[in-house]
């Protein structure tokens, strides 16, 4: 695509300057402020903040709950995409629409809904508690909230790839006597793997920063159910802005690496599909 030759250079430069200024002011400058505060006392200060026991506990909790959720939602999301693309059944259109629900819902409302359903004084939650299963005010609640909030990512990443895929190869494998499970692992999975990985990484990156649903569900007990974003909030409230910024820098760094990796996976996939079509 060429640049519109017809537009005057003034108009072009004006638009470009507006776009650049907006993104710099709204995104780069604010992020720079966090990084600057995290490093005010150099690496030693940053290291000290991250090494505080409360911060370590919170980071560890955030990492393992996000990881567990990612495993579950990667499997269930891939399965959902498969069922939505390959099968026809009543209620399917409704189900396809319902997948987007977490994107439309405020995460705080998600938290409220989960407490209402699984809280220890509610019917379902009370029953579970008598079975010895603690959800609200426990790590299980955090995982549950994350499962809800990130559910669409894998589904919406895998679905379009699956739709473009011909069913021929699968049918050939099946005709040759391969079991459905074997066909899935050897034929389908290699084709959709980049999309699955993309969806999984987006899930994980999103989960690292989740706040609204968790702050309601988790009970935020230090050392037990206090995640990194909630810990950052606590530090801001307490006026420890450097500590808050230090932990933010770590979370930001991690998320950026994940996003970069997602871009890389997607570009590789595009290159490969171009190569195939040539």
């Amino acid at each position, binding site marked *: 695509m060429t640049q519109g030759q*017809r537009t005057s250079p003034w108009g072009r430069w004006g638009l470009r300057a507006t776009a650049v200024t907006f993104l710099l002011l709204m995104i780069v400058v604010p992020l720079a402020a966090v990084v600057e505060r995290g490093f005010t006392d150099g690496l030693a200060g940053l290291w000290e903040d991250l090494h505080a026991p409360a911060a370590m506990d919170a980071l560890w909790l955030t990492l393992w709950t996000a990881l567990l959720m990612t495993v579950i939602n990667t499997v269930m999301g891939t399965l959902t995409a498969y069922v939505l693309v390959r099968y026809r059944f009543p209620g399917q259109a409704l189900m396809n629409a319902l997948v987007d629900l977490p994107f439309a819902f405020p995460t*705080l*409302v998600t938290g409220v809904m989960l407490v209402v359903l699984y809280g220890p004084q509610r019917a379902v939650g009370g029953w579970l508690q008598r079975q010895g299963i603690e959800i609200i005010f426990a790590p299980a609640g955090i995982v549950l909230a994350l499962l809800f909030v990130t559910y669409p990512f894998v589904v919406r990443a895998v679905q379009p790839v699956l739709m473009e895929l011909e069913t021929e190869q699968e049918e050939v494998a099946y005709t040759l006597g391969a079991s459905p499970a074997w066909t899935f692992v050897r034929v389908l999975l290699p084709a959709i793997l980049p999309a699955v990985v993309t969806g999984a990484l987006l899930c994980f990156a999103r989960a690292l920063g989740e706040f609204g649903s968790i702050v309601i569900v988790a009970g935020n007990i230090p050392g037990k159910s206090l995640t990194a974003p909630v810990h950052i909030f606590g530090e801001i409230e307490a006026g420890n802005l450097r500590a808050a910024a230090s932990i933010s820098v770590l979370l930001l760094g991690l998320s950026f690496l994940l996003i970069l990796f997602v871009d890389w996976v997607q570009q590789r996939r595009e290159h490969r599909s171009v190569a195939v079509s040539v």
Partner: protein
Amino acid sequence: MLPSHPEPAKTGSGLGGAAISRGFLIAVVVGYLLVLLAGPLVAIVLEAFDQGLAPLWAALTQPDVLHAFEMTLWISLAAVLLCTLFGTVVAFVLVRQRFIGRAFLNGLVDLPFAVSPVVAGLMYILLFGQQGWFEPWLEAAGIKVIFNWPGMVLATTFVAIPFVIRELMPVLQAVGLDQEQAAHTLGASRWTTFWRVTLPSVKWGLFYGIVLTFARAMGEFGAVLVVSGGISGRTETATLFIFRALDERQQVAGTGVALVMAAFSFSILIVMELLKSRTQEAAQ
């Protein structure tokens, strides 16, 4: 970053013929969806209507609840306006212009998706709060950003920046330049071309982006909580009210406002579904 939303294909027979594994897979997925998404949804409806309509209505018409809804509406509208105006310019520049640093700008657009809302709030505290970068200037000018609506608008705008841009870019790309050039050849000015040719052909994509932006903005909680201080009757939005109500054991009011927001989000979901088919028609 935004996953696309395809409609299911009309054909396809599935993995071989095994009816049992087909039924089993569908049951697993539908079951997961019911437990994960539908269960909590039903629970909050039952909870909010638990004590009948009268207490719910009384709770929802309290002055601080009404003020919170009003606050949410104004903050969201302001954020939508900023995101739409500047987002359209950014999308236009990223699609139609080639320059050094374009890839970098393109990457920047996705960053708000990767930033925790709490961190987004912290950014504005560090810029405009006490000992913040711009605090001396603001102090001199007598402008209060933190614990006030400008900070809330900025934080909400930040988290919602990507939507309009990411929805508009593929549509702009697909539309191309032919029609615009034709209009220009026929003597239309650049403004006329933009309003009469470009905008009508991308309007559904733009509208979809605006709906997503609004949904994200009115549901924002973490960033606004950090920036606003949640002063009841002044800087308290609907989500902040829910948070305070649950803390103060105002169960009916808290779940009631949550239910209203859930219902609103649900209607946004329906609008999104309708728009999807429109945008797909436009793309073809």
